């Protein structure tokens, strides 16, 4: 769909040009993610598939504790996220996301509510014929379909062109940083 442009950087950037294989493949090799999860402060004991049968997929090292309870490493990892959150690159991604989503959400929500309220409070207006059997209500209903399709396309386009690359780089950098403070595992 979208040919790769800009500087090639980080893992996965080279695969941008072909979207199919890229999406199927997490930028981190599979077995690595499996392990990452276990020294990840995000998931503590409750959340991480307690009591899974011993032969289960990921070779969960029995001793790897959940980092949140571990204190120090967890605290430092939290700092990583604060640091990333304050970084200019992240704020730019967030800004681009919000700049599209907030107005688009407001627009379609108002348009939908307006449609519903008009259908209940102004039936005469909605019943006004436009052409043949088609009246204002029909046009409005089909208009809702049309705007939904258009906004879906616009959102996907915006995300693909303006957010994806930056988000992927941030993801990679963040994971590098958290791995660093967690003691370089695996």
């Amino acid at each position, binding site marked *: 769909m979208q040919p790769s442009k800009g500087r090639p950087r980080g893992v996965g950037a080279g695969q941008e040009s072909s979207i199919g294989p890229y999406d199927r493949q997490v930028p981190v090799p599979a077995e690595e993610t499996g392990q990452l999860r276990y020294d990840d402060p995000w998931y503590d004991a409750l959340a991480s598939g307690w009591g899974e*049968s011993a032969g289960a997929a990921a070779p969960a090292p029995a001793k790897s504790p959940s980092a949140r309870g571990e204190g120090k490493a967890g605290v430092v990892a939290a700092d990583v996220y604060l640091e990333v959150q304050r970084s200019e690159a992240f704020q730019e991604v967030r800004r681009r996301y919000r700049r599209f989503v907030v107005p688009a959400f407001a627009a*379609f929500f108002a348009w939908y509510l307006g449609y519903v309220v008009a259908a209940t409070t102004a039936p005469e207006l909605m019943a006004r014929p436009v052409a043949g059997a088609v009246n204002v209500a029909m046009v409005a209903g089909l208009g809702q379909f049309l705007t939904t399709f258009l906004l879906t396309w616009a959102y996907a386009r915006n995300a693909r062109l303006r957010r994806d690359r930056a988000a992927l780089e941030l993801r990679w950098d963040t994971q590098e940083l958290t791995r660093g403070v967690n003691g370089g595992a695996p």
Partner: protein
Amino acid sequence: MTGEHQTLALLLFSAFVAVTLAITTWVSRHRRGSAEEFYAGGRLFSPMENGFAIAGDYMSAASFLGVTGLIALFGYDGLLYVVGFLVAWLVVLFLVAELVRNCGRFTLADVVAARMRERPVRIAAGTSSVTVSVLYLVAQMVGAGSLVALLLGGTSGAARAWAVVGVGALMVIYVSLGGMRATTWIQIVKAVLLLGGTIALTALVLVRFHGDLDRLLLTAAERSGHGEAFLAPGLKYGGDWTARFDFISLGLALVLGTAGLPHILSRFYTVPTARAARRSVVWAVGLIGGFYLMTIVLGFGAAAIVGPDAVRGSNAAGNTAVPLLALDLGGGAGSTGGTVLFAIVASVAFATILAVVAGITLASSASVAHDLYASLRRRGGKPRSEVAVARVAAVGVGVVAIALSLLARDLNVAFLVGLAFAVAASANLPVLLYSLFWRGFTTRGAVWAVYGGLVPALVLVVLSPVVSGSPDSLFPGVDLQYFPLQNPGLISIPLGFLAGWLGTVTSAEVPDEARHAETEVRSLTGAGAA
């Protein structure tokens, strides 16, 4: 109703059941029993596969049977459902899909619990997820019941009851043996079948009217006996202000509810990245939008060709409009074409119900095992495998849903789904949005947001004309009706948001800035996503 189409329909339906059971066993051959695999199918589906599965999960009996029935009976007012069902996907796409994929692992509670004290939040979100799922399940199984009653010619209670029990048993088998992988493939197969059936019927309706949509609408309006009013809003929800507020309430519930449906949220965990989650929603919007456009044609087609009186005569709530339309399009009762089409449509509808029901059962069993059981089990009790608990939970959810469906069998399925959406929008959406976007959100706020939406929504339904106080109620003999609207969304959705805000501003807890940072960074970049 002749014997042949019953035999043929049963044959086709058995074929579908056989295929799906084969998928289930084939998929579960290589099962390793990890939670990742059971709940999320290993997260290896492609966006297109997941898009079809989402469509298969979402295009329920409520849409295929219920909405077309409402359009056939009430004309334009049935169309509101369709618009709401579709527009809701913008909420999912903009605010939920990618972020939830990045933040959670298996359930809605995962996203919220990441920032909060885990236990209370998991219990609250788990409870509301299970409640929503059971309501939604009931709607689907009521649809299965009325379909069978029609198919077997009688309105015999026994046939309906057995249909409901049979669907319940099958869904438990799919889910507990096959997990997410089997469920997803069943949904994909079903989506293809349903779209194929709908396209064929739509084409036949259009051929009948020589492609002249105008004449289709005019004929429908004429046969309905309401004339032009059939094509404008107001037949069902016009009249007094109670009905109008009901309409607004329903509209709100539909558009906000989808993003809180547990079985839809759990679909985003089956793809590897947020980007894949987004692309699967784009696929889903295309498929679902096309499907709903066709159901509009089918609904008006049923009004024009079968006529509202015949539809109402077969099932008062209109749930059988499409099968009747198929019978007529094929050449009428007794003809070969009619028999074949009727049988095909009936079995497609069955497939639809089975697939949707399997998806919901899976999501609710995940909530029970991953959220509720994990939080409530006794410390020091013998730990059981989470997946084993989830399998047992699937059976439990199935039993409850069967019992409730037998009770609610005379309600319109689209309407029942409207209730499920209202509860989802009140209990699940506020807490989800607050925890994704509000820096100062606290544990108390999260718990209050869930219960503050869930309890009012359920209480208002109990006090509404749906349950008592009118001739169409579940318990016509009792009068507990204190709330005039059938759909509680107008009141309970704002209450859910309000309760979350109140709980947050009144709690002494200092929001954990670092964990908010983590949620925000993860949600937008996917760092550290499972």
